[in-house]
């Protein structure tokens, strides 16, 4: 891949999709999966969906270039998006460009983090975003391609080439795509975007640089209190970056677990407080070398325990998924924030 591409539009020989994919792979544009051809005509259809949104984009680290809408759209086309997904994709890019998201750090790190993209609001239905069964998995074009488009933009615009600028030790399947919708319909509390101050009718993208979902399986508990014991046990993991106590994490509660917690009188606030108290990591589970390292950067045990965030507000809670007794914990990269952007 060249450092700063000289031309926005490139004339290449006519070729079929297979030949284009070979060409794109040679250029370093591919995530390894087949790409669609970003013809001028196709890109123009995507650009049309964001006309009127003239807010500038800040330079994208680590490569430090200011993207053009056409280049962003080319990545969305290559990812297999429909044109109507593009405003979600651009909102996701704006979110990761929030300074406290620390895009540079999240892309250059050896950690396995990938940008989690969560979609809230009525647009979930309009775009057929999966918020229910298998919401983190395969089978839905919107989920698959919106997350992939962001990943391709980070490769091609940000320059996060694996092994070069992207230094992840092992990577993470979520780097291909990690996009889902909130299950607002089965959320007995307040949807996440409303918790963040948006209107219920707003369409919002939320991003966090996180690991893949850690499953929280609990078929046996019949009380909310029992579920929280399981959740907290799963969250108190010394191998996740949350052990540094410096960043956010998400708890995505499955609808059946949410119903039990609601029945037993728990609210988002009381769940957060309980999990904050119970998800501490006992120092006996952390090596001396690690404790010394954490202490050297200001993260000392609170008594005999390490906290997995700075305050209870670092625990972000919502509902997604379908039937079944599973929830998920998504620990973040650590030195990052949860960023929300309203879709224009």
């Amino acid at each position, binding site marked *: *891949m*060249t450092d*700063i*591409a000289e*031309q*926005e*539009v*490139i*004339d*290449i*020989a*006519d*070729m079929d999709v297979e030949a284009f994919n070979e060409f794109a792979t040679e*250029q370093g*544009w591919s995530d390894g999966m087949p790409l669609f*051809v*970003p*013809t*001028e005509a196709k*890109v123009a259809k995507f650009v049309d969906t964001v006309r009127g949104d003239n807010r500038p984009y800040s*330079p*994208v680290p680590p*490569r*430090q*270039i*200011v*993207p*053009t809408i*056409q*280049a962003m*759209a*080319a*990545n969305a*086309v*290559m990812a297999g998006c429909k044109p109507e997904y593009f405003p979600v994709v651009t909102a996701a890019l704006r979110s990761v460009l929030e300074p406290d998201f*620390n895009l*540079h*750090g999240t892309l250059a*790190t*050896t*950690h396995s983090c990938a940008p989690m993209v969560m979609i809230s609001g009525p647009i979930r239905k309009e775009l057929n975003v999966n918020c229910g069964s298998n919401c983190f998995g395969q089978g839905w074009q919107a989920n698959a391609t919106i997350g992939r488009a962001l990943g*391709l*933009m980070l490769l*091609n*615009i940000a320059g996060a080439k694996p092994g070069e600028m992207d*230094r992840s030790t092992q990577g993470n399947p979520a780097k291909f795509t990690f996009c889902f919708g909130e299950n607002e319909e089965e959320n007995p509390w307040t949807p996440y975007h409303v918790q963040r101050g948006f209107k219920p009718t707003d369409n919002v993208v939320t991003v966090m640089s996180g690991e893949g979902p850690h499953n929280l399986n609990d078929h046996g508990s019949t009380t909310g209190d029992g579920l929280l014991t399981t959740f907290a046990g799963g969250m108190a993991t010394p191998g996740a*970056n949350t052990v*540094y106590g*410096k960043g956010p994490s998400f708890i995505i509660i499955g609808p059946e677990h949410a119903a039990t917690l609601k029945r037993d009188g728990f609210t988002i606030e009381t769940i957060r407080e309980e999990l904050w108290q119970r998800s501490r990591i006992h120092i006996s589970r952390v090596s001396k*070398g690690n404790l010394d*390292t954490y202490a*050297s*950067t*200001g993260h000392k045990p609170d008594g005999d325990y390490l906290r997995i965030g700075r305050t209870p507000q670092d625990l972000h809670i919502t509902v997604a998924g379908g039937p079944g007794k599973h929830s998920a914990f998504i620990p973040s*990269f*650590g*030195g*990052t924030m949860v960023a929300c952007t309203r879709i224009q």
Partner: protein
Amino acid sequence: MRIVNPTFGLSAAAGETVALKPINWATDAIALMSNSKPNARELLEGVRAKLSAFRNVDNIVYHSKNSASQAAPKDQIEKVAANFRGALLALGD
């Protein structure tokens, strides 16, 4: 056929390469800047100890970020730039 280049963008950096100021490594004040990963401090302190055989090391001072995963704060960078002629950075990965 005509395609849109997915890597295209406008460079945010200035057009010219940033030139480094000259430094006398035998005498000038030097900041040792760690990326706060394990062993980065030990590496820099080890180099400092070795340098003591050749030069005064009282003006070679250790600094670190408060997070390995985040950039050094701007005021820390400005303070180091104001007080030291050179900086030796270590990436302890």
